[in-house]
């Protein structure tokens, strides 16, 4: 893999160790307030200072990172499951089902999905599982297209036809014989998908509609920080920089994986899928 890809993998491992490891060592409660030390600067007691109500920033950054990372990965898994199901069924069965499902995919791509996120959280609120389902449920379209394309490509291959003629049920043919052909491409789009999902979660949480206080996420930490940006700019710096770093790492890792796994796409443009 490219140097950038390896460096990204190392960065992601480091971030994971930080967000899951630090709370074991640094045991200050992320929600505990210390009213006498509000907006404190860096010190031994609070290595990254405190926020506007005296909560320890280091502790919140680690706990918030867990939420951000878990929501990002879970949303990507949701998108992957829906995308594989839609693309696979459409490609495998063809006909009317194909037409309906792929029109649905096109339609979902053409709508500004961020407004649909607002609709959903307005109505059902924003518990973390809801956020995962919403973010995943509105970003499966690129996956569906990839799986659809690969299914059409392989469904008439000899080994697939052979399996079918042996009487293997269709869903099993799909899972055992067609899907593995798409795995490399899916791995790439899953990696890039985590970055996109993290950006979406942080935007929703920044707006106050995502992860609800006092639970921290990198996005929700930035929500309050904007009010204090004049007096305590570092409060806005750490979570923002953390988001940039993790998304950058997922994007570079995705590009690196693509170079290794998908030689056909080597010259293609990289970055998040245009959705």
């Amino acid at each position: 893999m490219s140097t950038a890809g390896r460096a990204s993998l190392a960065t992601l491992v480091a971030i994971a160790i930080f967000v899951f490891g630090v709370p074991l060592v640094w045991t200050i409660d992320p929600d505990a307030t210390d009213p006498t030390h509000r907006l404190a600067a860096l010190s031994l007691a609070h290595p990254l200072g405190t926020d506007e109500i005296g909560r320890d920033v280091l502790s919140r950054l680690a706990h918030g990172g867990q939420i951000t990372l878990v929501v990002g990965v879970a949303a990507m898994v949701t998108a992957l499951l829906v995308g594989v199901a839609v693309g696979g069924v459409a490609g495998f069965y063809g006909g009317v089902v194909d037409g309906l499902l792929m029109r649905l995919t096109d339609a979902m791509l053409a709508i500004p999905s961020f407004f649909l996120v607002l609709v959903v959280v307005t109505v059902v609120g924003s518990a973390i599982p809801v956020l995962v389902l919403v973010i995943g449920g509105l970003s499966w379209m690129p996956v569906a297209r990839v799986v659809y394309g690969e299914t059409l490509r392989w469904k008439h291959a000899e080994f697939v036809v052979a399996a079918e003629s042996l009487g293997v049920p269709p869903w099993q043919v799909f899972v055992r014989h067609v899907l593995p052909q798409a795995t490399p491409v899916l791995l790439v789009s899953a990696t890039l998908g985590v970055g996109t999902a993290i950006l979406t979660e942080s935007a929703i949480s920044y707006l106050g509609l995502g992860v609800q206080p006092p639970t921290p996420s990198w996005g929700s930490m930035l929500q309050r920080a904007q009010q204090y940006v004049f007096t305590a700019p570092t409060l806005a710096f750490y979570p923002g920089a953390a988001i940039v770093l993790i998304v950058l790492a997922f994007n570079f890792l995705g590009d690196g994986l693509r170079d290794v796994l998908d030689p056909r796409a080597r010259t293609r443009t990289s970055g998040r899928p245009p959705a």
Partner: protein
Amino acid sequence: MILFTSVLTFFFVNLAPGGPASITSMTVTEEQRQALIREMGLDRPVLQRYADWLGGAVRGDLGTSLTTDLPVAGLIGDRLPNTLLLSGVALALACLVGIPMGIVQALRRDSVLDRVLDVVSAIGLAVPVFWLGIVLILFFAVDLRLLPSAGIASAVDSSIGDRVVHLVLPTVTLATTILPTVVRFMRTSLLEVLGMEYLRTADAKGLPARLVIGRHALRNALIPVVSAIGALIPRLLGGTVVTESVFGWPGMGRLALDAANGRDYTLVTGIAVVVAAIAVVSSIVVDVAYTRLDPRVTVA
């Protein structure tokens, strides 16, 4: 497509727990509840309510906002021009900066400049829009005191110049949501075209490089970029929600946010449908531009 969004949002809103359905479980007296249900027409089946709503929507009536008691269409109409201004300028900015940047990168392939711009694009893709906005405010409005940090115009001064100055930071921020992708598409597309046979022919017959690039390469390289920009419009419109709230821009995105915070679902539904309509209209415009550039394609 607009119809699709309206079906999606309307039925989701009306059938989901926590929507109008929750009124039936609110802690009010039985009479109050019945009165509310009747007032909102919730005693009728959902299909009929959708048909009524759709009938109104076609005539420009999107219902009444739950939090303000004002017509949804009017609330949206007040904010719509501001959002169109913001996203229109941001789109223009992304094209005017992104396309030349991509061209330069392709022509100077693998140079230091190309690599540097590549890294800049990668960072641009990873930066959360709202954070970029905060950083820009900190730098240009607080440290340098060059540009205003919020609003659409000053209270005392409403000249054109003042409005332009207020546009700078929000449009730059919003443009960044799509700029890196425009740059990358332009670069890749031009590189692909530059490798074509007909360009070698043009070169071989002695046309000056300026003409080879300008007349033959760019025209063809722009075609996929135009369709990519069309596909980016939904993302640009989604970015208005965040951008408008960072900069206190009185547009539709912030209206949607306020509506979401107030659980004003008639307003949120109306906005989602209007935004989908904007996205559809812009994609038609892009399709028309596409046929101008590529005579082989006709609008279906």
